[in-house]
């Protein structure tokens, strides 16, 4: 079921979307260069969704697929965070980790509103 909801997106969440989109576009380019075309396209889609949310201002329409894009982006960035941490690149790991939390905040807010919408 496709469910579009209007969410309030806080400033720090929009910033996290911008950061995440930059990282995902870089990753997408790298994946394309090594021949992982499908994964490159997926990361590009996630980045586009995050760009749209970041550009939308305080209120943003998000549908089910867009919500999953945000969650998938958070999963990919968890891997980036963990890799940076393993390499003792701690500051970058912390920054990415904070953005992951903000993306998850958006996901949970969508889920809460979706629960109300499907029951009403």
């Amino acid at each position, binding site marked *: 079921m496709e469910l579009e909801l209007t969410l309030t997106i806080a400033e720090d969440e929009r910033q996290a979307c911008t950061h995440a989109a930059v990282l995902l576009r870089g990753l997408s380019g790298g994946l394309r260069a090594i021949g992982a075309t499908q994964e490159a396209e997926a990361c590009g889609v996630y980045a586009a969704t995050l760009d749209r949310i970041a550009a939308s201002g305080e209120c943003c329409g998000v549908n089910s697929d867009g919500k999953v894009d945000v*969650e998938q982006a958070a999963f990919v960035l*968890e891997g980036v965070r963990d890799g940076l941490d393993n390499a003792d690149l701690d500051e970058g790991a912390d920054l990415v980790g904070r953005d992951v939390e903000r993306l998850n905040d958006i996901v949970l807010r969508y*889920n809460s509103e*979706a*629960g109300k919408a499907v029951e009403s």
Partner: protein
Amino acid sequence: MLLAVGDMCGPARKNPGAAATAELARRLIAKHPDAMILALGDNAYNRGRPDEYRDHYTPSWGQADLLGRTWPCPGNHDYRTAGAAAYFTYFGEGRAGTPRRSYYSVPLADAGWHLISLNSEVEQDAHSAQLRWLRADLASRRFQPVLAFWHRPRWGSGAHRDSKKPRWFWNALHAEGAELALAGHAHHYERFAPQRPDQIPDPRGIRQFIVGTGGRRLQGRTKDTPNSEYARFDLFGILKLTLRPGGYRWEFIDVDDRVIDRGEQGVNARGM
């Protein structure tokens, strides 16, 4: 007696352990016919759709002998269907609640414990309806020792690591002397020492288990987490909990019927 596990069913290629853990549950239930099952979320991959529940959950964990004794909580993959609608339809209001009120409690009269299912996939902060409900439910419970379960762990050494959001659950549960918190989400088994919400070890704190070993491909360690006492990243299995008014016993049992981790503890002084 409770059997707890999460992250079970989906396409066989990515969920190679689901059938085996369901069979393990059957063997344990044959020895303990009154056992309840706690399904810790992400029950049907990848998007918790009706057809995924039908095609992947029903053939193993969704058979009547298991489903009829299952008390679930939703996971993030269940919410990939808007509002986790398929999850609520599949388990029904009497077991799962509703999309709007997706949490519930069950008094376990024989064991003398209070069981709480929470939803880590929706808002849970100070202003949320869920947290208000949790506080009221804890205040009015019949039995003191509390076991709460939800999908996303507060602390973890595997995939996804720690989640800050469930700190609200932890604060409320700890204030009422809760004993146990169970979660899935990360596909490994991990047991923590009792600890306070600020991660200070405390025998009167909450002991957390992660049991994301229900069938989805296992995941490895990503960090060392304070107060983690034992972890396995290489085995599918189920956590068996035996509750009694004065304490609890745990066993993590793998799909070859081996007891991998076991222990026992009295309920904490605040919980009595």
